[in-house]
């Protein structure tokens, strides 16, 4: 199931230590021609191994963890244009957006503005930020049009993906250039300020290098000023190159490279401390992965990637009589090298193991109070052994051993048992432990504002040592394919015990009234001109999350498809929780229904229904009441059948504004848009 286990990131500088769009051109020249593969006798012609383990989804009947797949058809039918929105289709997942930062995705509660507890990978490359550990969803270098499918592990999976696969893993698999053709143009726009235009060009060079170049530019007003709070308009340019080179019948090189450029207009029309400003973001990445087929069910992979991200955030805050220039620039980088071996010894035994090393680096005077680059190295080795003594029984033992510079050595084990009730249904019992290592900000953060050589405010000072968060989990699942009915079922009950929850607390330096004094010294040059209050991190609290998830997927060729998900979640505390909001941070019930109906004359209609019980988003967020959201899409294909040519109309949230992340503060703008896709 895992493409590549570990990984992580973004990053770098406006003068980003650039991605080195390596010598892809040279590569083309080195490639052998596939003519060598041709034979006049097709029956004995040799062929490369195409569907390797890394290309396929593990059957949910055999998987040691609960997995939801969002496939191409669901992506199209949902009408979502942003990747994070697609996660509304996953049982238990909740999604929110807010104007002061990235949209957020949470699973099983404790969601806040930095969704650092879910690991996100794109083709096996980890894109969680080295700074906060969160995901900058709007800056991802792929668009919904690039995605083949998203595999979502709906719970902890440290055993396969290492630390930070804490409340789930989202593995985004992009479309292979081999499965597209020609040139496509995609345009979406609404009657306000949503503009999205993209082009996709596919080609083949040197007889053995298939590539796709995709580029898009989009702009949207996500939030307008509401009740004096901030607004947000975004602009993004994304360029991506994706290539697959056949080096031989057994060897394949996958190349991904891309650049993202963005400008966000945000701020408040009424708050002089946070006036309207433009935030700049630049990202780049290069990802090389070599896959060698050793045998029909054995594969070796080696991958390297580099990611760089630079944000440029500056404004002038009017605080009392002062005009204070603020600068929150940050540059981050990640380099990651990993190998993985997937090997089936026999029908009964299968092994996956690998190891990797990663270096995260960040430079930001604002966040770390130094002009130096802060770097952290992290290595890990992981393995998963499956043993199937009989047709019905499958045991899986897996674990990851890792060492972080700033959180020590961690071991995340898991044991799973899958029992086949029939050839098409099975029970799964699994139990394990997973960790979330503190992010750079949580372990080394010194967020500060300077004025005239003095530090006037320290919003965050990670002064105390903190331990990784831990979750111990057990779950019982039932998965079935009812072939006669065309129905797939996936349901489970789970119990998760979280401990060492990393919370932030506030304290004051040099407070005259001695209110909550800090137990640590202030930064040098601190004068507290704006505020003497600072936040720090501590391991605090333990709580239990339990619940039930269920998903059903019914389809019938020619009729259409219905995908339903439902989750009931309860967070229980036993006197060890410092923040009462934690208990309310997961909605008791979430539902999603996606109905896709094939209609005559090449029309296709879909309806998405998303229900969320009240939820409290922690820290920067707050309560959001019960929400029912309806999305509608009607599309008609034209041109050559199978070409993908299509026009569509989409109405999101019934065309109405809706409260998001904090009902008192934010109203997300609706979107009613038309789209056109033409291929030639």
């Amino acid at each position, binding site marked *: 199931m895992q493409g590549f286990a570990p990984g992580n990131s973004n990053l770098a500088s406006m003068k980003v230590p650039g991605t080195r769009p390596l010598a892809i051109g040279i590569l083309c020249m080195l490639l052998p021609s596939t003519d060598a593969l041709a034979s006049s006798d097709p029956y004995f012609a040799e062929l490369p191994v195409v569907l390797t383990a890394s290309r396929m989804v593990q059957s949910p009947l055999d998987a040691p963890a609960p997995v939801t797949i969002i496939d191409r058809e669901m992506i199209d039918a949902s009408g979502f244009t942003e990747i994070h929105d697609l996660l509304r289709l996953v049982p238990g997942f909740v999604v929110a957006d807010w104007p002061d930062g990235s949209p957020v995705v949470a699973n099983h509660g404790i969601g806040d503005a930095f969704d650092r507890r879910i690991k996100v990978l794109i083709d096996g490359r980890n894109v969680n930020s080295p700074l906060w550990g969160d995901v900058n969803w709007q800056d991802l270098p792929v668009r919904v049009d690039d995605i083949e499918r998203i595999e979502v592990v709906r719970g902890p999976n440290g055993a396969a993906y290492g630390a930070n696969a804490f409340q789930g893993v989202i593995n985004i698999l992009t479309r292979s250039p081999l499965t597209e053709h020609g040139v496509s143009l995609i345009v979406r726009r609404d009657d306000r300020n949503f503009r999205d235009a993209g082009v996709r060009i596919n080609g083949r060079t040197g007889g053995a290098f298939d590539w796709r170049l995709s580029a898009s530019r989009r702009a949207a007003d996500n939030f307008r000023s509401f009740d004096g709070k901030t607004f947000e308009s975004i602009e993004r340019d994304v360029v991506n190159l994706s290539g697959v080179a056949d080096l031989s019948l057994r060897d394949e090189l996958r190349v991904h490279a891309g650049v993202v450029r963005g400008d966000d207009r945000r701020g408040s029309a009424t708050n002089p401390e946070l006036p309207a400003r433009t935030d700049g973001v630049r990202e780049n990445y290069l990802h090389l992965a070599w896959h060698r087929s050793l045998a029909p069910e054995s594969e070796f992979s080696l991958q390297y990637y580099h990611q760089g991200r630079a944000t440029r955030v500056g404004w002038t805050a009017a605080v009392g009589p002062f005009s204070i220039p603020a600068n929150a620039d940050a540059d981050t980088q990640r380099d990651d090298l990993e190998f993985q071996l997937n090997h089936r010894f026999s029908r009964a035994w299968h092994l996956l193991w690998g190891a990797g090393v990663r270096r995260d680096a960040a430079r930001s005077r604002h966040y770390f109070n130094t002009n130096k680059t802060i770097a952290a190295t992290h290595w890990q080795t992981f393995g998963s052994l499956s043993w199937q003594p009989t047709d019905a029984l499958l045991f899986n033992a897996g674990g990851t051993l890792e060492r972080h510079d700033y959180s020590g050595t961690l071991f995340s084990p898991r044991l799973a048992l899958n029992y086949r009730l029939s050839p098409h249904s099975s029970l799964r019992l699994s139990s394990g432990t997973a960790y979330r290592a503190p992010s750079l900000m949580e372990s080394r953060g010194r967020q500060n504002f300077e004025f005239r050589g003095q530090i006037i405010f320290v919003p965050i000072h990670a002064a105390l040592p903190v331990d990784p968060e831990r979750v111990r989990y057990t779950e019982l699942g039932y998965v079935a394919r009812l072939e006669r009915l065309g129905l797939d079922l996936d349901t489970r009950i789970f119990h998760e015990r979280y401990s060492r929850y990393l919370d932030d607390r506030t304290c004051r330096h040099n407070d005259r009234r001695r209110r909550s004094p800090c137990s640590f010294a202030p930064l040098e040059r601190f004068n507290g001109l704006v505020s003497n209050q600072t936040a720090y991190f501590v391991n605090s609290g333990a709580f239990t999350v339990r619940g039930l998830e269920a998903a059903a997927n019914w389809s019938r060729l020619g009729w259409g498809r219905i995908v339903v998900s439902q989750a009931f979640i309860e967070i229980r505390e036993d006197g060890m929780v410092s923040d009462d909001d934690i208990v309310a941070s997961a909605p008791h019930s979430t539902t999603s229904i996606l109905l896709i109906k094939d209609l005559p004359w090449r029309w296709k209609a879909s309806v998405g229904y998303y229900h969320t019980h009240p939820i409290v988003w922690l820290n920067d967020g707050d309560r959001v009441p019960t929400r029912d959201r309806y999305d509608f899409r009607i599309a008609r294909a034209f041109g050559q059948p*199978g*070409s993908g040519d299509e026009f569509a109309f989409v109405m999101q949230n019934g065309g109405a504004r809706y409260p998001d992340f904090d009902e008192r503060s934010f109203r997300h703008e609706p979107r009613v848009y038309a789209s056109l896709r033409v291929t030639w």
Partner: protein
Amino acid sequence: LTRSASRIRTLRGRTWSLRALLWLVLAWAPAAAAADYAVLLSRAGGAYDTFFDVLRTGLPQTGAHRLDYAGSLDGESDEAILGRAHAYIAVGAEAAERLAARGDRPILAVMVSSQGFRDVQAHHPRSTLSAIVLDQPLDRQMRLIRALLPKAERVGILLGPSSDSLQGPLVAAAGALDLVATITRLDDDSQLIPALRQLLQTADVMLAVPDPVASNSTTARPILLTTYSYGRPLIAYSRAYVQAGALAAVYSSPADVARQVGEWMANQPTDGTRRSTVETPRYFSVAINRQVARALMLDPPDEATLAAAIKDKQP
């Protein structure tokens, strides 16, 4: 197909008594004179070598026919052996092409596709060419689909210019098992992806049919990836295709072909009769890709069980 046979020509026109004498001799020939088959491989190694090894070891030493290895096209071929043979066994289309160009002996082409064999025939219409082709009977392929996917209703098939003639037979073979064959013809591979997508919108399963345009070493990758992305199984025609990612295939292995060639030789008259025959594979194997089956949540029986299940019904 014997030396005696060529002698017949030279005797033609002579006296009836001589001819009667000759027929008498021929009646005893199987025991008296072994026929020499020169075997020429298109390439040394791989499946062709396996075929020859199995054929040689399986042939009775005392039989009426003798095998002589005449080499391979990519190595050295032994002119002396070719010169004294009564007939040739050409292994692979290239060898058949080369030997047919000589035009001096009857040829049995083996390990060839029917398309490859037809091409050789077209190039050398005067040659006496027989073949045991690799193309599995269509009904056998449909039986495999039925055995693997009892609920399947529609089979998607891509054809190209040279396999277009199979359209009618494919529809008929599918219909006999309550399957509907949905067929798209490609004129060139530029429209491969749209054509595939169109088929996959309605097909439960894809069947790959060898064709220089629609299904070859280059198109295997996009076909496998696209078919998988729709969650549909692909039934292919070779073991290599199954290893590449097809769910299953019915195919004749070199050993299967060798067995049939052995039988063919045993049944050859030594009286010089030259009839061109084309046989379809009598023996076959089934290959399953377990990894792909698991990913598609399928649980097919083992290969031997499947092979037995799709055996031709005895008349």
